[in-house]
């Protein structure tokens, strides 16, 4: 098991949210949108622009800055 920022997750790779670094309000927002600690994610698109990923049944687009703050266990 290694912990990496979400932004380093390649297209098609999956992992679990371990921790989100950053201010509380954004963490809470992400939690509420289904990206809570322990949530499984799968990267769909990670080239330029926001990353796109699947988590608990929904497809989310996240800015690259934000994707650096989400730590993933894979």
């Amino acid at each position, binding site marked *: 098991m290694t912990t990496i920022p979400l932004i380093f997750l390649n297209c098609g790779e999956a992992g679990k949210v371990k921790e989100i670094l950053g201010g509380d309000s954004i*963490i809470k927002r992400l939690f*509420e949108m289904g990206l809570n600690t322990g949530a499984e994610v799968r990267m769909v698109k990670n080239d330029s622009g926001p990353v796109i990923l699947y988590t608990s049944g929904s497809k989310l687009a996240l800015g690259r800055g934000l994707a650096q703050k989400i730590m993933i266990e894979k």
Partner: protein
Amino acid sequence: MNTIALVGNPNCGKTTLFNALTGSNQHVGNWPGVTVEKKEGKFKYNDKQYNVVDLPGTYSLGAYSEDEVVARDFILKGNPDVVINVVDATNIERNLYLTTQLLEMGTKVIVALNMMDEAEIKNIKIDIEKLSKGLGVPVIATVASKKKGIENLIKESIAYINKDNSFSMPFSYGENIDKEINNIKGLLVNTHLEYPQDWIAVKLLEGDQDIYNLIKSKGPDHIKERLVSLEEDAVEYELEIVDKRYDFIGKVVSKSVSKPSEVIDTKTDKIDKILTHKWLGLPIFALIMFTIFQLTFKVGQDFLGEYVAGGIEWLGEALNGFLVSINSPEWLVSFMTEGVFGGVGAVLEFVPLIMVLYMFMGILEDTGYMARAAYVMDRIMRALGLHGKTFISMLVGFGCNVPGVMATRTLDSKKDRMIAMLINPFMSCGARLPIYLVFIAAFFPNKGGLILFSIYFLGIAVALLMGKIFSKTLFKGESSYFVMELPPYRFPSLKSVLRNMWDKVWSFVRRAGTTIFVVVTILWILAVIPFGVEPYSQGSVLGKIGTIIAPIFKPAGFGTWEASVSLFAGIVAKEAVVATLGMVYAGVEEGSQLIAAIQGAFTPLTAMSFMVMTLLYTPCAAVIGTVKRETNSTKWAVFTAVYTFLIGWIGAVIVFQVGKLLGF
């Protein structure tokens, strides 16, 4: 009459369910005090009427946005008899998060487990009975789009209304937090704060600013003293509470839901591969918009437009004939035919176009493409120092800038929001469309779609440019984070598209009958006084006002009193520009068409500069008012009015002067 409230996440099929429940018996208004849309409807069951209120779609019931506050205040203060929580069965964990917050409120909740057909296709199996037992509330399976389960949902909801509320919280927040909740409740004894005490306690521990403010203004002193330390504790508890809610959801779902280890929508993924493609995404977006404007023109103008224009003309002549035949006074004939039919009629002629444009916009929205448009625009927006979601508020502005300005609420940082509000007026709203159409018909009948596309594009370009300037000058600092759901692609339902279109068209027609009618009446009076003056002439009060303003527009090529007056009227409402032109020109050249009159008064070049002016200059009073309300500042409202006017003027002058140099 009993009231049923509908709540749910965005894209869970809540609106479809609302339509299935109420049919055509509904109306759209605003929540008192705020500008969030309020949809209400009625249905009859066993000879009893029930009122259904559709609350805004939200992920949560915090104080994160105005939508959330509206929803939770209605549930807690509006006293609905039962709350139907629409849950998307294909995305059950995330959707149940909102459910846990409803349970905390202690209100009567019934879960409508929607999109069961899609869940089945995705091989998600849900044991309804176990789910209901785990949550402690009734759960009804529905497929709103196919009207399945609706009858059952109605029956169960009504039965639930009449049952005693013997509900108790099915989960706890753990020992520490439960103890804190009890402590706070102890402090709240004998206070009346319009909200349930358990709920206030949880919200205080979550650091909910709205509730802190409520206590600060209305709470008893012994709690006020504790607020500071509570707020410090909240930092620690806030996320723990969210975690506990998810723990509970996890437990319930593990017992009642079985699904494949990964639920992936291959159809949506395939479409997204193309539509959000690194290089193809933007050109496709441009192509879609271009096609929409072309089609709007072809269908709305060439095909439908003639019938409506012909019909209005015929009606005007018939009324004229009738009024003359019964020997009505001359002023009445003039008011009705030139004022009302020349003005309001000129606006109504554009109903078919508005209809077609809104229909396409509705289709874009219903298919789920809007979120993709924001996605592909994010790169450009970011390069300009703007937030990707700003673009959604801009797209909404294409319909009307009032909701466009309000849509900026989804932006988290003040910087992003202020910029998004200030640039929204450059997005060409539906009410400005008739202006372009009149001028296109007069000078560029064969290039309608192209010109229209260019105008809208220019609006976007100016908005982005101003956004860049603002982010470098007035509002420095980092943009907030970008996070957005990309809903699965769905085939738009004809019914919902048509209903959406009808709502918008109806509000356009209503404005023509109310605001525009009043403006036209005032302008008509100004055009015929002082008595004895030639009506609609430069000697009338209206003519004099126009003459005073006109020199300002000389460098832009349209320094006539008629054009000036119409722009002046346009600040009240953009439809009034065409209405005014219709009135003053119909008055000058008796019996001739507005378009013919414009061909005489403008040249192709001044038509272009006039269109650019109307695209960019000061938005209507309603938008200025919305900016004032949303920023809570008269200063920014005045700023918006003045700077847009300057930009419009500069734009029009550039078009005219450069065009002249190039020999147009």
